[in-house]
């Protein structure tokens, strides 16, 4: 239904300029149209993100490469922006396919392959859209804290509207556990 309405609207407004729209719609109507279209677009993006597929056009990789952003602490040395969408490397769909299909997965990895980030993308995606509880085991506590921070970054760098759709219950994951006696 929405698709038909959008197609009709696109047909009607083909070639229209902002001036045409201002003449055609009153201030309130234009605001309403804008809000309705934004809501339709958000629904569409949300639906694409929620999918359980290993693809750059839907699912966690779409979310990471198009919607949210990662942060690169080596951005100065690498001449890259500090915040950027996750890169579209051709081995990511293969890795995510394995994430989806494997109950237990061992990934031979090396530095700079972004496997830690990939794990966090998968984990955060599963938590946000599928209420999953994901356990990522790491070699030590420092590394565990870093990965939790990756998940926090992925959540925080989403657009406002998406964070509002999936509010955090708490942001206390990085707090230290109570000291042992």
């Amino acid at each position: 239904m929405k698709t038909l309405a959008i197609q009709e609207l696109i047909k009607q407004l083909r070639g229209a300029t902002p001036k045409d729209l201002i003449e055609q719609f009153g201030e309130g109507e234009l605001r309403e149209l804008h809000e309705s279209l934004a809501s339709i677009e958000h629904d569409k993006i949300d639906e694409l993100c929620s999918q359980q597929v290993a693809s750059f056009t839907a699912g966690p990789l779409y979310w990471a490469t198009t919607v949210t952003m990662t942060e690169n602490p080596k951005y100065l040395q690498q001449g890259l922006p500090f915040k950027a969408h996750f890169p579209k490397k051709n081995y990511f769909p293969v890795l995510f396919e394995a994430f989806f299909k494997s109950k237990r997965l061992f990934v031979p990895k090396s530095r700079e392959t972004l496997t830690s980030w990939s794990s966090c993308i998968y984990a955060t995606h599963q938590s946000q859209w599928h209420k999953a509880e994901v356990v990522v085991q790491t070699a030590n506590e420092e590394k565990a804290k870093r990965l939790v921070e990756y998940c926090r970054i992925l959540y925080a760098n989403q657009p406002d509207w998406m964070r509002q759709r999936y509010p955090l219950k708490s942001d206390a994951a990085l707090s230290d556990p109570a000291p042992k006696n």
Partner: protein
Amino acid sequence: MSDGRGRSAGTRKNYFKPGQSGNPNGLKKPPRAYGSFTKALRAIGFEADPDPDSKGASNIEVAARVMWWHANHGFNGQGSPKTIETIADRLDGRPTETIELNANVTQLSQEERAQEVLATLERLKKHEDSGDTRIN
């Protein structure tokens, strides 16, 4: 004998008379030399400390010296960081605090809104045209 309102003759004798307010035998108010407590504090601050050791220094000056001494030598000679902080705040002012505020306040003009509508339509058209191009 009661006056019909349950009050005895003795009570009636001590009762407030018409036109009389307050207790005529009560303590007299001291004259208002300073007007208010704050004014009194300020005025007395400039008076000389009666302690002969102060050598005529004002109460304010003595208080300032006590504060400095407490800051550097109080608490058994260890000094008091809290007092140092209070002095620093007085002299330099409190450091500016940064409050992070995340608010989404967008006031678009008609022109900008119209542009946004067309841009959103264009993106939605691309979505419609692209179809399902998933890898699996």
